[in-house]
C-alpha cells in the first residue's frame, strides 16, 4: 500500500450552530486521486478550507506526511507542500499571467527583502528560475502566448487551466482541486481528465478532487467519499458508490 499523504481524523466545523462538517475522516495515499462528492452545501469546500487552514477546526486533527497541521497558519501549510485551486476562480487580477504563476513560486525563493531592494545576484538568479519555470508551465498548458495578458481577459476555460498551472508552481506533493470541471464543456472536461492523470504520473502527485461532474470523478478517482449535510454517508471505490442506496437517495431524493 502506498504511503500516507494526508490523514484527516474526526474533523468537525460549525458555523453559528450549523454543522458544516461533522466528524469527517479520510486517508489520502500517495499517487492516488480521491474524490469528495455530495449535493450542494454538503460541506465539501469546507473540508478543503479546513485542510488548508483557512478556518481552524473545532475538533479533530489533520496530518500531512506525519506532520500535524491542525493549528498551523494557512501560509505555512502551503509551504509544506499542499496546493489548491478554487471553486470560483481566484486569480490575481492585477498581475499578468506569468506573474500569477510567479507568486506561487514565492515559497521556493530564499532571498530577503534587503537583497530585493537592490536586486542583488541571488534575487536575479531566483527570479530567473521563477520565470523559467512559469514559462515551462505556460507551454505545458498551452498558455505561452498569453504570458503578458491579464487573467480576466482570458476565456473561462483558460483561466481554469491557469489556476491549475499556478497550483503546480510550488511543486506541491498534494493537490486539492475544488470543482476543476465547473463551467467546462464536455470536450474540455475530457481534456481535463487527461491532464490530471498525466500530471499525476509526471509529478508523482496525490490529488483530492471535489466535483459535481460524475463522469469525471468516476473515471479518475480510486476512492470516493460522499458527504451529505456535513456527514460522510459513504466511502469506497466508484463502482461501489454508484450502487449505494444512501448515496442515490441523497442525490436523487426519496422515491415518491
Amino acid at each position, binding site marked *: 500500500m502506498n504511503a500516507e499523504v494526508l490523514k484527516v481524523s474526526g474533523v468537525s466545523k460549525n458555523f453559528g450552530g450549523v454543522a458544516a462538517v461533522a466528524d469527517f475522516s479520510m486517508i489520502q495515499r500517495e499517487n492516488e486521486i480521491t474524490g469528495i462528492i455530495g449535493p450542494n452545501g454538503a460541506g465539501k469546500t469546507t473540508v478543503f478550507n479546513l485542510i*488548508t487552514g*483557512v478556518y481552524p477546526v473545532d475538533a479533530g486533527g489533520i496530518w500531512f506526511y506525519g506532520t500535524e497541521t491542525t493549528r498551523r*497558519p*494557512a*501560509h*505555512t501549510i*502551503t*509551504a509544506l507542500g499542499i496546493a*489548491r485551486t*478554487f471553486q470560483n476562480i*481566484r*486569480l*490575481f*487580477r*492585477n*498581475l499578468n499571467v*506569468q*506573474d500569477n504563476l*510567479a*507568486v*506561487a513560486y*514565492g*515559497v521556493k*525563493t530564499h*532571498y530577503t*527583502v534587503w537583497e*530585493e*531592494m*537592490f*536586486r542583488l545576484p541571488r*534575487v536575479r538568479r531566483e*527570479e530567473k528560475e521563477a*520565470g523559467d519555470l*512559469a*514559462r515551462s508551465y505556460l507551454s505545458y498548458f498551452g498558455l*505561452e502566448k498569453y*504570458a*503578458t495578458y491579464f487573467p480576466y481577459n482570458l476565456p473561462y476555460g483558460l483561466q481554469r487551466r491557469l489556476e491549475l498551472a*499556478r497550483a503546480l508552481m*510550488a511543486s506541491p506533493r498534494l493537490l486539492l482541486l475544488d470543482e476543476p470541471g465547473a463551467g467546462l464543456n464536455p470536450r474540455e472536461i475530457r481534456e481535463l481528465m487527461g491532464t490530471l492523470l498525466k500530471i499525476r504520473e509526471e509529478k508523482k502527485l496525490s490529488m483530492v478532487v471535489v466535483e459535481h461532474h460524475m463522469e469525471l470523478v468516476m473515471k479518475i478517482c480510486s476512492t470516493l467519499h460522499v458527504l451529505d449535510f456535513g456527514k460522510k454517508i459513504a466511502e469506497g471505490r466508484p463502482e461501489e458508490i454508484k450502487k449505494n442506496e444512501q448515496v442515490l437517495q441523497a442525490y436523487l431524493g426519496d422515491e415518491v
Partner: protein
Amino acid sequence: MGFYLKVLEITSLHTILVLGAYLMTGLTGLFSLGQGGFLSIGAYTAAIAFLKFNLSFPVCLALAVGMGVLVGFLIGLPTLRLHRDYFLLVTFGFGEMVRAALLHLAQLTGGALGVAGIPKLVGLPMIILSIVVITVITACLKRSRFGRNCIAIRDDELAATLMGIPVYRHKMTVFILSSAITAYGGALYAFVIMFIEPNLFNWLESAKLIIITFVGGVNSITGAIVTSVVYYSFGEFFRFVDVWRDVLLALAVLLVTIFRSQGIFGNWELTPDTLLFRRRKAG
C-alpha cells in the same frame, strides 16, 4: 529664480511622501490616513535632535528614520490585523493623535508655537537624489517577489495566503518601509522649510497622497511620481487658479474614476524598454 527653486523643493519633497504612500496604498491596498503622523514624527525627531541635542545632521536623519520604523512597528502591530475601513479609521486616529501629542508636549516640541530656527541644510540636489534612490528601491521591490506579494494581497487576501504568503508579516514590512520613507521625507521637510508646527500636515494632506496615487495609477510608480509633480507644482506656477486647484483635482479624480479606473498610467512604467518603444519580452 528663488521662487521657482522653492516650488521645486516643496514639490519634490511631496514626491517622496507620495512614494511612501505608493508602497502602502498603491501596491498593497492599505488605505492609511496616518501618513501625516509619520511625517510629523520624522520632522520633529530630526529638528529636536539637531537643535536641542546638537547632534550632527546625518545622525538626525538616521534618528528620524529609526523613529519612523519604531512607531510604524508599534502602530502596525495591532492595526494591520484590521481590514479596509477599520484600518483607515485607526490610522486617521493615529495621525490626529500625533498632532495632539505635539501640541501638548510643549516642553519638548514647543507646542502650538512649533520649532523655529532650523537651519536650511537640505537643497534640491539632495531631495532629487533621495527621490532617485527611493524610486530605484521601490522599482526593484515592485518587480520581484515583494511587489508581486503586495499586489496579490491587494487583489485577494485569501488566495494570497494560500499561495504561501505570510500576509500579516508582509503588510508589516510594507507599513514599516512606508513609515520610514515618510519619516525621512518629514526630516528633510524640516530642514527645507526651517519651521515646523503641529498642523504641518493634517489628515487632508494625507488623503491627498492617497488620491494622487490613485489618479496616477496604483500599478505604476511612474504614474505616482508624475501625478505628484504635476499636482504640487501646478498650483504654485498657476497662482491665478488658486482655490480652484482643489476643484480641478476633484474633477480630475472624478473623470479618472469614471473613465479610467486603473488610473491615468494604468500598468505603464517608464523603463528603458518602454522609452524606446521596444516590445517587452514575456518575463
